[in-house]
């Protein structure tokens, strides 16, 4: 299992992701600086969270035009797996690897808290295959622009193609603000057409130890690694 974590100026969740992947795979992922477009073939590339390039212009917009992006696209066309978390999700969207847009949170608040996610009935993918449809995962979010927006036709298409992987959900009716950002259809994560790319706003690497308050993130990342190893 060869994995790599991409680092841009302003990435700040890269170390946590490296710790998580090392814990699961027993090997340290390689660090890929954003200017690199020549690195060994990998099984998994993670685009971590942060505030790349100060979130100037639009979140992820400048990072999405970095040299490393064309290598990520090549990796995807070889059938490689990519996980984008938070700002990483924003970057994948800005790079047009995933469709739609992530706009300002509805209530204008930077939201940093645990969310309940519900596994959706979606296409075959390495990230959630070990989970049951409707299973709940507790994974925290920390973002200002996580409000998933897509034109109606695109939302319909994503639904029909089974590309909505995770939705914010309430485990009981008392949870009123279960959707932390006003996302359309409560979307928290979407897949590429082949299911090998997942973009998600919640941070699985921040839920890998009981001291974090939960280990559902570890479950998701472990599932992904196990599926890739086969």
């Amino acid at each position: 299992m060869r994995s790599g974590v991409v680092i841009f100026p302003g990435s700040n969740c890269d170390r946590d992701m490296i710790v998580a992947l090392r814990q699961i795979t027993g090997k340290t992922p390689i660090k890929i600086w954003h200017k690199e477009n020549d690195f060994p073939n990998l099984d998994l590339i993670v685009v971590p969270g942060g505030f790349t390039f100060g979130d100037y212009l639009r979140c992820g917009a400048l990072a999405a035009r970095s040299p490393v992006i064309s290598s990520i696209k090549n990796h995807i066309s070889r059938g490689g797996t990519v996980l984008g978390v938070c700002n990483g999700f924003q970057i994948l969207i800005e790079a047009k690897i995933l469709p739609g847009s992530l706009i300002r949170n509805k209530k204008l608040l930077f939201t940093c808290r645990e969310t309940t996610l519900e596994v959706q009935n979606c296409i075959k993918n390495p990230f959630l295959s070990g989970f049951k449809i409707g299973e709940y995962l507790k994974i925290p979010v920390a973002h200002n622009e996580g409000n998933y927006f897509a034109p109606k036709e695109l939302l319909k298409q994503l639904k029909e193609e089974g590309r909505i992987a995770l939705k914010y959900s309430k485990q009981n009716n008392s949870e009123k603000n279960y959707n932390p950002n006003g996302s359309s259809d409560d979307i928290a994560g979407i897949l590429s057409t082949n299911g090998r790319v997942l973009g998600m706003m919640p941070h699985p690497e921040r839920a890998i130890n009981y001291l974090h308050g939960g280990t559902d993130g570890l479950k998701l990342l472990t599932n992904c690694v196990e599926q890739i190893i086969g």
Partner: protein
Amino acid sequence: MKVIVNISLKEGVLDPEGQAIKSSLNNLGFEHCSDVRTGKQIILNLDQNSEDEVLTKAKKMCEELLVNTVIENYEINILKD
């Protein structure tokens, strides 16, 4: 040649910043203000002489980086001295 790019949110795209500004204006007594939409302006200096060429280049810049056409509209104007 100086080029001004005005970027605005498409209709139907939520503008929480505009909403916050609107409610603040209403609180100040501007009750007649029923909607606020925000946007941004980018001013470019392009080393080119022909207006056509400048417009073509600016349009390409908008499509490739400056504008997210999923949620934003844009307008390009050449600034005349």
